[in-house]
């Protein structure tokens, strides 16, 4: 065994049901280095690290720490091996101070004495240059301060190997710089740091080596100094795979929906949409590509009337009446009352698009129940629609009165897409409609979207698989940190080109403007 290695993963495999999250993954981390783990959504980065941190247990494979084989069955075991992970979602007690949170769950045999702990915490902060008030309550802290507490918590427990899961996703550029300075100081102190990230420029600026994962497999580990953005993107994306999805030329394309300079903030006041403009045309599929959480959800929800805008306009061109309607700041109900035929397949199928405990018929009714003046429900039409969808889309279900929660993911999606298409929309938005679906179900959905396109609907398709986007869409809009970084032609664009647009840094451009 190489004594220089802090952590070694050998042939780790982990499955969830029939899906491989990691397949024969091997990875090593040297003492005193920063290793970046790079990969697309769902490439198994977080799962692999969760196994090292004791959240999951691998199906097969071995983990070595300092050359010794170890079994890590719980986060506690991981701490015994001096491994600590800082998760994307912080796990802090809001009403406690920083020190109290750090002291929580530490069982080092010493008497619990807050002043001693505070002293040790101050020692750590001075050593690595953290800026934090140990007495401050968590609820008074900014996101960046909370993250600092999480890192100190891990250091306090004596971790030598630190895993950070997308630490910069919630930080401003300035905060990111500060974090990186701290990480570099830790490296000098001999700690090994693993950082999971999507952002290419950060990988290049902080890491010593980069490990690239693709579809659960470890592609390669390279020295950061010897590589560049293009090479890493190619490794991340892999070869183009042909899927044979039929794609027809758009006919009679006219503008149907125009989004102009929209900007919006989330609840924490972070900018989630930044000056976005585009036009969706009838009879075409407009793809939206981007790393998860780049603003795709907020964009679609803004159009559907579920997300408030700070600036900008959304205009709808009615194909029948030729009216022009402004959809900004309208509720879904007002949009429907305007006669805008907008269908929306949201990302969260059972939490938003459907009601899990209701049967298929009642879920069909969600879109149509207000029809008619009667105070009572009309279940005949929804039942016919449910039967039609079950038959046309081959939904595997015991019957139309089965609660949708009991259906498998693919069948749930068929029910949802079927319902949204049944209202003969003029704009159809679908967010990750094939996520978690098997090949056959996916093709059913592609065909449905294509049929809509041919019949003149403006289809907006948010996807994560670039191969699918490239074969299905007429144009692909790339979104990155809430900004549009490019709109490319789906027929001629290269996978690497889109990959680069997805990960290239947007902050520097912003400063130049």
């Amino acid at each position, binding site marked *: 065994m190489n004594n220089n290695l802090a952590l070694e993963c050998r042939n780790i495999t982990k499955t969830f049901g029939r899906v491989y999250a990691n397949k024969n993954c091997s990875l090593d981390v040297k003492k005193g280095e920063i290793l970046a783990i790079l990969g697309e959504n769902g490439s198994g980065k977080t799962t692999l690290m969760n196994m090292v941190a004791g959240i999951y247990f691998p199906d*097969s494979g071995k983990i070595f720490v300092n050359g010794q084989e170890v*079994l890590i*069955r*719980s986060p506690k075991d991981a701490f015994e091996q001096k491994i600590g992970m800082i998760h994307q979602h912080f796990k802090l007690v809001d009403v406690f101070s920083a020190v109290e949170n750090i002291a929580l769950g530490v069982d080092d045999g010493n008497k619990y004495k807050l002043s001693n702990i505070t002293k040790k915490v101050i020692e750590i902060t001075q050593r690595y240059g953290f800026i934090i008030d140990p007495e401050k309550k968590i609820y008074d802290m900014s996101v960046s301060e909370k993250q600092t507490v999480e890192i100190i918590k891990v250091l306090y427990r004596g971790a030598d190997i630190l895993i950070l899961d997308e630490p910069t996703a919630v930080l401003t550029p300035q905060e990111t710089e500060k974090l990186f300075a701290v990480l570099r100081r830790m490296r000098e102190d001999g700690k090994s740091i693993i950082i999971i990230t999507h952002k290419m420029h950060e990988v290049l600026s902080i890491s010593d080596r980069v490990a690239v994962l693709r579809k659960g497999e470890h592609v390669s580990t390279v020295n950061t100094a010897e590589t560049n953005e293009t090479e890493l993107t190619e490794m991340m994306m892999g070869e183009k795979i042909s899927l044979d999805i039929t794609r027809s030329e758009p006919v009679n394309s006219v503008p149907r929906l125009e989004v102009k300079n929209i900007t919006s903030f989330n609840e924490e006041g972070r900018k989630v949409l930044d000056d976005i403009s585009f036009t969706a045309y009838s009879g075409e599929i407009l793809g939206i590509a981007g790393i998860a959480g780049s603003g795709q959800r907020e964009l679609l929800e803004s159009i*559907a009337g*579920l997300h408030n805008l700070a600036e900008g306009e959304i205009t709808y061109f009615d194909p029948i009446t030729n009216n022009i309607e402004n959809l900004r700041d309208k*509720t*879904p*109900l007002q*949009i*429907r009352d305007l006669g805008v035929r907008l269908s*929306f397949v*949201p990302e*969260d199928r059972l*939490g*938003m*698009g*459907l*009601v*899990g*405990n*209701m049967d298929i018929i*009642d879920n069909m*009714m*969600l*879109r149509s*129940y*207000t029809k008619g003046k*009667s*105070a*009572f*429900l009309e279940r005949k039409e929804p039942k016919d629609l449910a039967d039609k969808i079950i038959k046309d889309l081959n939904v595997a279900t015991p019957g139309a009165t089965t609660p949708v929660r*009991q259906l498998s993911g693919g069948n749930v999606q068929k029910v949802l897409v079927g319902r949204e298409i049944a209202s003969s929309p003029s704009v159809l938005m679908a967010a990750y409609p094939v996520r978690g679906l098997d090949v056959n179900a996916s093709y059913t959905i592609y065909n449905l979207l294509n049929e809509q396109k041919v019949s003149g609907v403006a289809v907006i398709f948010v996807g994560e698989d670039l191969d699918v986007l490239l074969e299905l869409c007429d144009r692909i809009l790339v979104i990155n940190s809430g900004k549009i970084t490019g709109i490319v032609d789906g027929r001629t664009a290269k996978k690497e080109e889109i990959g680069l647009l997805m990960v290239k840094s947007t902050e520097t451009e912003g400063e130049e403007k």
Partner: protein
Amino acid sequence: MFKNALKNKTPLIRVVKRGRDALPWQFGILVRAIAIISALIVSGIIIMMLSGKNPIEVYASMFDGVFGTPRRIWNTLQNTVILLCISLAVTPAFKMRFWNCGAEGQVLVGGLATVSVMMFLGDKLPLPLLLVIMLAASVLAGMIWALIPAVFKSIWNTNETLFTLMMNYVAIQLVAYFLKVFAKDGSGVLKPMPQFGLPVIGKYQFLLNIIIVAVVTVIVYIYLKYSKHGYEISVVGESENTAKYIGIGVKKVIIRTLAVSGAICGITGLLLVGGTDHTISTSTVGGQGFTAIMVSWLAKFNPIYMVLTSFLIVFLDRGAGQIATKFSIPSSISDIVTGIILLFIIGCEFFLTYKIVISKSGREEK
């Protein structure tokens, strides 16, 4: 490695949620029957140990207390329909996941409105008109009492459980104040005014109450299951996000549903004061506003099942009262019996939702 080997074992008994394969309905009935029989056996043993009485005799006297004489049967029915009516009132709110714990107060203010009308307008108006005003006043009072927390919830997202609970105390103190001011003799007890009460059908004092509640049951059932309002209540209760996505005005639905909930509570107040007691006291509702929560949950918010569950609760309550007096055993023992039976009945739902897996051996070390 020894330490790891210990950690490695899967626990001997695990609880697993029942999967997609729905249970046959016979299984449900079987489990519930076993629960009731075992409850009777266990509480029988406890009765013998604590009081030395023959459990069979004790159970017989329970039945006697509930069905023994026509008068007892009528009382049982009356208690059942009042409890049922309150349970029906809280159900629309509960289906919407709005935890209305304020039925106690809503019924009481309904009763207070009724008794005020009886007292101040009783000898001034003809009876039919008086009844109409009584109905309107009680419904309005219950509605207002439920609407206050609903409006606060929908505008400022206040916690409805706390708010409705607090409103109960306000209602009780209102009644106490009313009695202090208007009970002329200063005793704090208001003389019954049967001359201004709801009409009596034939010789059966409680028949009208029973008919009214039966009608309310059917209406609530239809409202929840077949009306557009009922559908909106279900969607809001299941997922507020879906409701927004589909364009349901969540605030509007909350306020409207609580108006319905409060109105039915107000009617119950009318039945209690106008149709039963013909007077009011701070204990007129007697905690039934809380018991109704259990009745509604036990019936899984289905108004038809609620007929059964409210009868079950009343049966246990009245039966326990009877054994306490007949065998002159402390009423705490009869309360224990009631508790055990309820525990078994509620507990058996666990076995219908989950199954117990007993693993034969620990997982092997890798």
